[in-house]
């Protein structure tokens, strides 16, 4: 196997399944439902399945500021990853901190609600003074600056914000910087918190499935919103390294076909997957399995499956999608799904596709319906986002 790449030495996660990678993996193994039913707006009678972090409503109410809630979740994931990586505060000093998020809209929303007395909310009741205009759009970068200061990180601090590929691209950026020797190690964080504004936005595009996410299924209707935070600690690969997981290939390309959907023929998905595989120096037949993006919208699953069929010329390896378990966590999905996938491999299995039941004849290929035994090899991880932003990562296990 190739010795290229960057080691992953610690992972941590907080998701709708609770805190910890172990809890997340157990939920996945058992196929437990972690969704809640919520209403989006008084004007929409339908209720939607959403994957909230457990206890978030109480936590938001308890928190005196938005940052108190957000930082607590992020630091919980970081602490778990640090314990696994056997990292202490000295380790953090010259580490880079790279956060991927679509923008921390929740922070602005909480501030707005606190100031504007708006009781009907996905985030719980908040009361306060009236403000003349919304305090929206604080910019995504201040959270990384704040977290870096709290952790005592002196290395580069970067926030990548490319919608649903944000934290996948944060891993890609970290991988490149470590491989080139610009930095020795990085903590990559993917963080996303559900906001009423974002849910309403996806609803306006008719991209939400009230019944939850059904990736690649004949009856799929769209997204199940989710929120999560994951931390991934990456460091330079040494020749003598015995570490089990490494990120050894990555590619990011922009599909300029349409701002909200990929080319339906799968050409864009094909291009980015092939580029990531070529970077490793392997062939498509060397891929053991794929963690698909599997967003469960009719068009995007068709496009991704089309790309997989093209790349593997009708002989696709097993593929699966994780959004049925934890929802679509937008900018966090790169980090949380990588952490979940590694957790499952570590526990000895490649997870089945929760939510999938019936093959779509228009797609012609089906994701995993049962867990498979994990084996050493190369795994392709796909992440596709709005703005045609497509990223594929190659994870080496063993």
């Amino acid at each position: 196997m190739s010795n290229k790449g960057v080691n992953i030495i610690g992972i941590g996660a907080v998701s709708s399944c609770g805190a910890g990678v172990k809890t997340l993996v157990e939920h996945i193994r058992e196929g437990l439902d972690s969704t809640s039913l919520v209403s989006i707006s008084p004007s929409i009678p339908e209720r939607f399945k959403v994957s909230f972090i457990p206890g978030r409503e109480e936590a938001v109410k308890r928190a005196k500021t938005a940052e108190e809630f957000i930082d607590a979740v992020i630091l919980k994931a970081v602490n778990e990853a640090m314990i696994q990586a056997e990292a202490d505060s000295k380790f953090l000093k010259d580490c880079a901190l790279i956060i991927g998020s679509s923008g921390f809209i929740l922070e602005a929303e909480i501030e707005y609600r606190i100031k504007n007395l708006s009781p009907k909310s996905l985030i719980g009741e908040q009361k306060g003074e009236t403000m003349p205009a919304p305090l929206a759009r604080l910019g995504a970068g201040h959270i990384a600056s704040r977290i870096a200061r709290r952790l005592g990180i002196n290395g580069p601090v970067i926030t990548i914000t490319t919608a649903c590929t944000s934290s996948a691209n944060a891993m890609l950026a970290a991988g490149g910087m470590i491989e080139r020797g610009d930095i020795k190690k990085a903590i990559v964080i993917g963080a996303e918190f559900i906001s009423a504004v974002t849910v309403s936005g996806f609803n306006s595009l008719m991209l939400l499935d009230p019944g939850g996410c059904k990736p690649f299924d004949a009856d799929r209707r769209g997204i199940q919103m989710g929120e999560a935070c994951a931390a991934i600690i990456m460091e330079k690969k040494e020749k003598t390294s015995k570490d089990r997981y490494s990120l050894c290939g990555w590619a990011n390309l922009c599909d300029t076909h349409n701002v909200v959907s990929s080319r339906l023929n799968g050409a864009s998905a094909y291009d980015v997957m092939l580029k990531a595989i070529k970077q490793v120096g392997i062939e498509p037949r060397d891929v053991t399995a794929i963690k698909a993006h599997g967003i469960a919208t009719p068009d995007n699953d068709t496009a991704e499956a089309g790309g997989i069929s093209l790349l593997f010329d009708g002989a696709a390896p097993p593929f699966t999608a994780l959004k049925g378990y934890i929802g679509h966590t937008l900018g966090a999905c790169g980090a949380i799904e990588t952490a979940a996938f590694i957790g499952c491999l570590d526990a000895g299995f490649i997870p089945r596709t929760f939510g999938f039941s019936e093959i779509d004849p228009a797609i012609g290929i089906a994701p995993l319906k049962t867990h498979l035994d994990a084996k050493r090899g190369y795994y392709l991880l796909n992440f596709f986002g709005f703005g045609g932003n497509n990223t594929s990562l190659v994870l080496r296990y063993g």
Partner: protein
Amino acid sequence: MDKRKDPVYILSASAVGPNADATAAERRVLKTDPESCDFQDIVRQLTMHDFRRIGHFSEISVTGSQIAIRRMAHPISPNTGIYFSTGLGEVKKTVSMFEQVLGHEEGLVSPYSFVNSVSSTTSFYVAKAARIESRNITVSQEELSFEIALRLAQTDIEDGTVDCALAGGADELSHPRSEHMRRIKLEDRQIMGEGSGWLCLGKNSRNAIGELLMVKEIPAPECLCRGNGDVLSEWLNVAADAISPWITEHEKTYLLPGFRLDKKHIEGLLNRLPQAEIKNYLKYCGCFHTAAAFGIASVFDQPHSEPALYFHVNSNLYGRTMVVGVRAFPAQP
């Protein structure tokens, strides 16, 4: 000196200011907070696309990137990465979305407001207008957003991930000032601004207008206590150490102070770098998170008769500082 492996050249540049000014002749010194210009016609002329549903923020960004591409001596390579940066992103559409969803009527958001507010939308339109389908990254790191995007672009060119890079930054202002100040925190004397700045970068020196010398970070003050001096002198020593090795006798040297640098930092730097002169670009664009992009790109507003060095220095509110150095080449006959 922290010299990089291979030089990265500046193939073209564009800086678009609040009055849709894109050339030296069009620049006007701002006396008060500017209003936003309408860029719709400019975007239509530049791109031949119907981008009428994009927001003002995307319009500024597409305009700047298109002007930079048009100023290149050669067609842009298809393997050009886009490294876009913004401090706040799409402010106006996001505010409007908040009002639609969380206002008194608790209504629904318009699909266009939502799509425009998504963080990858602007770089998508930049790519679409340029017909580029290569790497596309958006960085948002407050006052240092552009510097970080530039560093990612520089290293991706150096290691061959991309042949060329279109590195840019943009931010938009919003009124009233009191609201915008919550997002950007300016002093009363500082004029708020907006605009975009873009550099086309590549490894090939043919027809290059300049060279990217360095993008370097200076740690926050709490990490600078290496001697017995005070924090300011330590900061000045480290900043001057980053710049001075590049200074030569035969090149004029300019300091471009970012909007977070205060008087004592600027004066201190000038004391340590007596060869340097101040170039105050902020008077043309106002203060915004990615003003550095405007400042560095505007260095190339006019052809240079002699080579010159420019060093942009800015800090964020957490005390981190980044220095960007570029060399402007004399215009080719």
